[in-house]
């Protein structure tokens, strides 16, 4: 029996919850479909815990393959290398390791593109000028990359970032922060929250303030509620950038295919972050997913 271990972050906010959901769905489907494959999903609340989980998984049984979505790149590189050295096939999802030679298969969304595509749409829509406020998540690589992609894209335009603060990928904190932004800046043309959980709080705060100056409030990640807004043609949130948690499912399937099928797969797969618009929104809408 071949063992495929899946190590992912714990479901501590919307997007990671989506990851857990899709990983578990994949495990269930594959375990049912292939009796000689055992997919084991383990979640970890922090990088340290994830390193521990890796050790536990590889100490407890012989792993044929590992699918991992690392909390952080630096901290997980060495431990994943240790697993790899024991002869395990390694699939890395979303956040690349510092040493790319470790990963047999790399499947990722493009965080920089999330920021960049959102920025491009804003530049377009606002005619290249206006006042922006930005809400970022918690200080990690993902957050950093998205912000970087965004800021690089608006460089040279007359879009001005009035303020940028952390709101911990938490809708509550985002609600408060947005209220404060609204109190502080009399004219805000657009808001970007780099995650949809936060966008929910932002929208609530804007709605409550009754302010009319905000033309755009965009998020990212492809949360079903936001995709629904896009489908419904919401004026303030007409587009969405996907960063689909379903990528973990893709990765698991590909890994299993490599393991048992005659379908050797190696290399890098980069998921694009195309804008979700009213036209194509339906393909990104999963009403049953928790995210």
């Amino acid at each position, binding site marked *: 029996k071949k063992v495929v271990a899946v190590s992912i972050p714990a*479901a*501590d*906010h*919307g997007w*990671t*919850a*989506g990851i*857990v*959901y899709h990983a578990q769905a994949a495990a269930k489907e594959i375990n049912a479909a292939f009796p000689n494959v055992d997919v084991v999903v383990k979640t970890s609340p922090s990088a340290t815990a994830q390193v521990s989980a890796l050790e536990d998984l590889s100490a407890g049984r012989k792993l044929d393959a590992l699918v991992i979505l690392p909390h952080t790149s630096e901290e997980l590189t060495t431990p994943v290398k240790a697993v790899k050295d024991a002869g395990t096939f390694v699939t890395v999802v979303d956040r690349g390791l510092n040493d790319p030679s470790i990963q047999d298969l790399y499947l990722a969304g493009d965080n920089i593109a999330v920021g960049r595509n959102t920025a491009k749409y804003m530049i377009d829509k606002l005619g290249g000028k206006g006042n922006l406020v930005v809400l*970022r998540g918690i*200080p990690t690589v993902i957050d950093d990359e998205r912000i970087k992609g965004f800021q690089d894209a608006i460089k040279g335009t007359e879009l001005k970032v009035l*303020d*940028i*603060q*952390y709101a*911990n*990928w*938490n*809708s*509550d904190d985002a*609600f*408060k*922060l947005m*209220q*404060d*932004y609204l*109190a*502080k800046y009399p004219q805000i043309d657009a808001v970007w929250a780099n995650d949809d*959980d936060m966008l*929910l*709080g932002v929208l*609530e705060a804007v709605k*409550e*303030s009754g302010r009319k100056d905000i033309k755009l409030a965009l998020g990212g990640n492809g949360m079903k*509620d936001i995709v629904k807004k896009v489908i419904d043609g919401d004026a303030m949130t007409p587009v969405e950038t996907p960063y689909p948690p379903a990528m973990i499912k893709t990765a698991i399937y590909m890994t299993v295919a490599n393991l048992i099928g005659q379908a050797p797969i190696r290399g890098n797969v980069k998921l694009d972050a195309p804008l979700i618009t009213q036209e194509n929104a339906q393909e990104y809408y999963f009403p049953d*997913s*928790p*995210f």
Partner: protein
Amino acid sequence: MTVMTDMAVPRPQRDWNFSWTDVGPFLALVALLMIGFAINPDFLSGTNLANVITRSAFIAIIAVGATFVISSGGLDLSVGSMAAFITGITIMFMNAMAPAWGAMAIPMGMAVAIGVGLLCGLMNGLIVTVGKIEPFIATLGTMGIFRALITYMSDGGTIPIDRTLRDAYRPVYFGTVGGIPYPILISIAVAAVASIALYKMKYGRKCAAVGANEDVARYSGISVISTRTIAYAIQGACVAIAAICYVPRLGAATPTTGVLWELQVITAVVIGGTALRGGKGHIWGTVAGAVILELIANLMVLSDFVSEYLVAGVQGVIIIIAMLIQRFSK
């Protein structure tokens, strides 16, 4: 042997001392408002202040409950997770009732919330008192349990309230009476009832006695177990009230709801003048403490001095300075 005549004269110096602890947090509040105004005049605008105070209502309501627990010599780290759990249960219940009962589901859900809150608090209380486990550890354990439950209930995602209930329920957070938002009114009401309970009712005496000296309480025929358990149950009810106000704000429960509220709550209680080792509780000080915390956060955003990376640090510094001033102004 007659009583000395000067006995009946109230001693001014004592009364003064007493009021200082009481007044401290309010002075800090005023100082903060003035600093805020100096930094950014918008700070004192009606909308901003209303927003901030409304926001502080959750923490204030929960912290009022925590004042009972802490005053009786306990501690509750589970309040944040409990709030999330109650929010989740309430929303699920309302959603289930909505098709049959329509808007009536809202008051029914509120009753369920209070009931669940009381039960959760009772559970905490019993583990601490009957189980004789250090409150810190016991409620750290239940914190994990509540958090796990809400995560499980929501599959890690969100539990949104039914669209049909949303508008009916919205006013509970966003509505006003005479220009004063409901959450402010609710938290004032909670604090008022709590201060009657703590200062004017027998239970308050028992609470303070148990917190100040368990032995004396026991030898006075006061049940330490029931007094402290009731404090936890009150805490549970307060969390439920906060949850009820919270639901309409974002209309959903998520596994991140209420994360770290426990720390804010305890900080509010301590800033308010209640000692963590138990004894006399200061309800209004607690409320002031909650507002102070929210004001500091607001000030951080409204001012332009601080790098986004350093916000948490500056808040820490301000809280420490505020406590230092409070200590040494006496």
